[in-house]
C-alpha cells in the first residue's frame, strides 16, 4: 500500500534553555492511503502537538513530515495555505463552525476558498450531505444544531474538498455517548465507502476502537501500536484497554 503520511524523527521542543520541554521526542510513523488510524495518549503526552505539526498549524523543531510525497516542513506562506486547503481536512473538538453561517454555507466556504463554482459546490454538498445524513439540517445555523449535528457538518466540511487525509482532533470530546457513537460510525463509513484516510487523536478507548490501527504515545514517544486486523470491534476495544492498563491506567484521567 502507498504510504500517504510519513513522519520521520520528528522532535518538537517548547520553552528555552533553562526550561526545555520535549513535547515530541523523536517520533516516526507512517499512515497508508485509506487507513483509519487513531493516536492515543494522556493529556500532555504530545498527541495534539503531533497532530498540529502534521496539520501544518505548528512547526517541528527537527525531523521531516511527508504528505503525499511532499515535505511539509519546508513549505512556507501561501504554499502552506494552498497545501492545507487542497490536501488536508480538519475536524476539531469544538467543531469550529462559523456561527454566522448556515450548515450549508459552512461547508460551501471550504469549497469557495478553492475557487469552485457555485453549481459544483451545490452538487458536492448535496452528495456529502446524503452520505452523512445531514440534508435536513443544512439550512440551520450552528446554534440551532445539537453537538452531534454540528460535528457531522464539520466532518462534511472536512471531507467535501476531497482531501488526501482528514485530521481529527478529539472529535468526540464535546459529544455525549450517543452522538459519539453516531459520529464514529460516520467516520467508519467514510473510511470504508469513500476510502478517506483518517488520522484521529483521542484519549477515549471507545473512539479509538473504531480505527483500524491505534498508536499509543506517552511522554512524547511512541509507546506501542495495535493493529485491529480481523478482530471485532469489541475484541479490539478490550485489547486497547489492556495496553492502557499497561501504560499506567491513567489514560482516561481527563474524562
Amino acid at each position: 500500500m502507498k504510504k500517504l503520511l510519513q513522519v520521520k524523527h520528528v522532535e518538537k521542543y517548547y520553552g528555552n534553555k533553562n526550561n526545555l520541554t520535549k513535547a515530541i521526542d523523536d517520533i516516526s510513523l507512517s499512515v497508508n492511503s485509506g487507513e483509519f488510524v487513531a493516536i492515543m495518549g494522556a493529556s500532555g503526552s504530545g498527541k495534539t502537538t503531533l497532530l498540529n505539526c502534521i496539520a501544518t498549524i505548528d512547526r517541528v523543531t527537527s525531523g521531516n513530515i511527508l504528505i503525499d510525497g511532499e515535505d511539509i516542513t519546508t513549505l512556507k506562506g501561501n504554499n502552506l495555505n494552498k497545501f492545507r486547503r487542497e490536501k488536508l481536512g480538519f475536524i476539531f473538538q469544538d467543531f469550529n463552525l462559523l456561527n454566522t453561517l448556515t450548515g450549508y454555507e459552512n461547508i460551501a466556504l471550504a469549497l469557495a476558498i478553492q475557487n469552485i463554482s457555485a453549481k459544483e459546490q451545490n452538487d458536492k454538498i448535496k452528495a456529502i450531505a446524503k452520505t452523512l445524513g445531514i440534508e435536513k439540517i443544512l439550512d440551520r445555523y450552528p446554534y440551532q444544531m445539537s453537538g452531534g449535528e454540528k460535528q457531522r457538518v464539520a466532518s462534511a466540511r472536512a471531507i467535501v474538498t476531497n482531501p488526501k487525509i482528514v485530521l481529527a482532533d478529539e472529535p468526540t470530546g464535546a459529544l455525549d455517548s450517543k452522538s459519539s457513537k453516531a459520529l464514529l460510525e460516520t467516520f467508519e463509513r467514510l473510511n470504508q465507502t469513500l476510502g478517506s484516510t483518517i488520522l484521529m487523536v483521542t484519549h477515549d478507548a471507545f473512539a479509538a476502537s473504531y480505527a483500524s490501527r491505534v498508536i499509543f504515545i506517552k511522554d512524547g514517544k511512541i509507546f506501542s501500536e495495535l493493529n485491529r486486523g480481523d478482530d471485532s470491534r469489541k475484541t479490539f476495544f478490550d485489547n486497547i484497554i489492556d495496553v492502557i492498563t499497561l501504560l499506567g491506567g491513567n489514560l482516561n484521567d481527563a474524562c
Partner: protein
Amino acid sequence: MLAKLAFKNIKKSFKDYAIYFCTLILGVVIFYIFNSLDSQTAMLRLSESTSSLMRMMEEVLSGVSIFISCVLGFLIIYASRFLIKKRNQEFGIYLTLGMSKRKISTLILLETLIAGVMSLVIGLACGVLISQVTSVFVAKLFEADMEQFAFNFSIAATVKTLIYFGIIYLVVMIFDVVMVGKCKLIELLQAEKKNEKIRLKNPALCIVLFLASVAMMGWSYWAVTDGFYTVISNRPLAFILVPIGLGCVGTYLLFWSISGMALRIISSCKNIYGRKLNSFTFKQLSSKINSMVASISIICVMLFMTICLLSSALSIANYFNNSIQKYASADMEVEVYRESETQKATDFEKIFSENGVLDDMSDLVTVSVYSDPNFNYGDSLGLALEEITAQYPYITFDAPIDIMSSSDYNKLADILQMESAKVGANEYAIVVNYETWIYSRTLELDSKMNIFGTNLSPNGSKIVDGFNIINGGAFNMGFFVVPDGIIKNEVPYKDFAVINYFTQEHDDQVELNEKIAAINYGGSGVSFDSKIRIKENSIGLSAMATFVGLYLGLIFLISSAAILALKVLSDTIDDREKYNILRKIGADEKQIKGSLFKQELIFFLLPLVLALIHTIFGIKFCLMILETIGVTTLLGSMITTCIIIVLIYGGYFIAAYACSKNML
C-alpha cells in the same frame, strides 16, 4: 495596588484603543480652540463694531459648546461601553480571585480618571499649539491686521474645557460603575462563548418598511425642495421640522429593512455569494449592521448635517469675501432725499469742496433717482404679480419703484464697474441682481410699461445685472432705466453721490467717512454707506457661520467616524476566533485581509452613501435659504467639504483597518 493595575491596564490596551484616545484628544483640541477665540483675536486690531460682533459670536459659540459637550458625552459613554464589554472576562477573573465589585468599580474609576487626565493634558497642550496657527486664519477671516505674532493662551477656555470634560468623565464613571454593578459573574466569565444568534427579519415586513421608508424620504426630499412652498404655505414655519423628522425616521427604517433584505438578495446570487469568502464577508457585515441600525442611522444623519453645515458655512464666508469686492465697489455713498418737489438738486461737489474733503476724492459721481406714483412694484411685475404674490404672501407691492435716466445709470455703471444699459428712444431696461427677483423679472420680460405717461417697450430680452446702492451682496430687487427724454421734466426724489478715495488706508478712510457723515446736506433725510462698514457687517456674519459650521461639522464628523471605528475594532476582537477557523480551513492571509477590508469599507461607506443622497436634496434646501442672502452656488465649498470628509472620515477608516488587521 489598584492604581498600579489601572496604569498597567491602560498601557496594555493603549494600542487597541489608540483610536479612542485620539478621538478624546481631538475632541479636547477642538473644544479648546473654539472656546479660546477671544484670546486668539486679542492682538488683532479690531474696530468697535467688529469687536462687538466678536462678543456676540463668543456667546453663540459658548451656547453651541453646551450642545457639543452633550454630543461628546454620548460618544464617550458609547465608547466606554464597548471597552467595558470587551473586558468582561477580565472582570470575571478579578471577581473569582475575590476582588469585590466595589474594588472593580474603583479600578474602572481610576482608569477613566487616568485616561481622562491624559487626554485632557495632551489635548490642551495640542490645542494651545494649534490655536497659534488658527489665530492666523482667524485674523485673515476678520481681515484684521495682525500687528505682531504673540503667543496666546486662554485661561478661560482652559478652565472651561476642564470643567466640561470633567463633567463628561464624571458621568462616564457613573455609567461604568452602574454597568459593572449589574453584571453577573457567570455572564462575565462566559461572555466570550456567548452564541450570537442570527436574527432573521420577516421578509414581507422588510419590503413593506422599505417601501414606506422610500416613500417617506421621497416626500421629505420633495417637501424641502420643489414642494417647499406648497407644503409651507398657510402653515407655521416650524412645519419644516416634519419633513426633517420624517427623513430621520425614513433613514432608520431604510437601514432596518435593507439590513434584512440585502443579505437575502445577495445570497440568492449564488455565483457571487459562493465565491471565495464572500458568504462569510456578507454575513459578518449584515450582523455588524443589524446590531447597530440605530447608531448607523444617527451617524448617517450626522454626516448629512456635517456636509450641509460645512458647505453652507464655507460658502457664506467665501461669498461675502467675493461679493464685497463686487457689490461694494465704491468707497462711500451719500444719499440725500429731497424735501419737496421744488428743492434744488444737492450740489455735492460744492459741499465737499467747502468742507475740505473734495481733494481726497479720486472719483465723485452724482446721480438722481425718480419715482412715478402711478407706477409701483406691482405694476412693474405685470402678469407675473399673481405668481409672485402666491410665493411671497407677506410682501406688498404697492410702493413706487425707482427709476433712473440712462445717462445717470451709465455714469454709475462706469464707476461701479457694471455693464451699461442701452435703451432706445421708447425703450426701458430693468436692472436687477437679486437671485430670486431675476427669476420673477424674467417672467414678464416682453411687456410694455407705462412710465411717466409714456408707453415703453423692453430694450431686448435681457435683464441688466447691476445695482445703484453699494451693498454686501446682490440685493437689488430691481429698478428701471429709461431714456433721458422721458424724465426731462420730472423731479427726482433723491440724489446721491458715489465716491472713491485716493487713500486705501483703513484708518484714513474711516476718518474721511466720519467727516462726510458730519456734513449738513439739507434735504429731508440723508443716508450713508461705506465699503468699510459693509465689510465689517458681513465679516461678522461670515465669521459666525464659518465658526459654528466648522465647530459642529468637525465634532459630528469625528463622532460618527469614531463610533464606526470603535465598532469595527471591538468586532475584530470578538471575531478573532472566526478568522482562525478560516485559516484552519485553508484561507490565504490575502483572502482574510481582503474580507476584513471589504467588511469595513462597506460598513463605513453605507451611512456615507445615504448621507450623500440626502445631501443632494439638503443642499438644494440650503441653497434656497442662502439665495435670500445672495449665495448662488455651493459647488466650491462642497469640494472643500468633501476634502475635509475624505481626510477625517477616510483617516478614521484607514486607522481602523490598520488596527484591526494587526489584531488578527
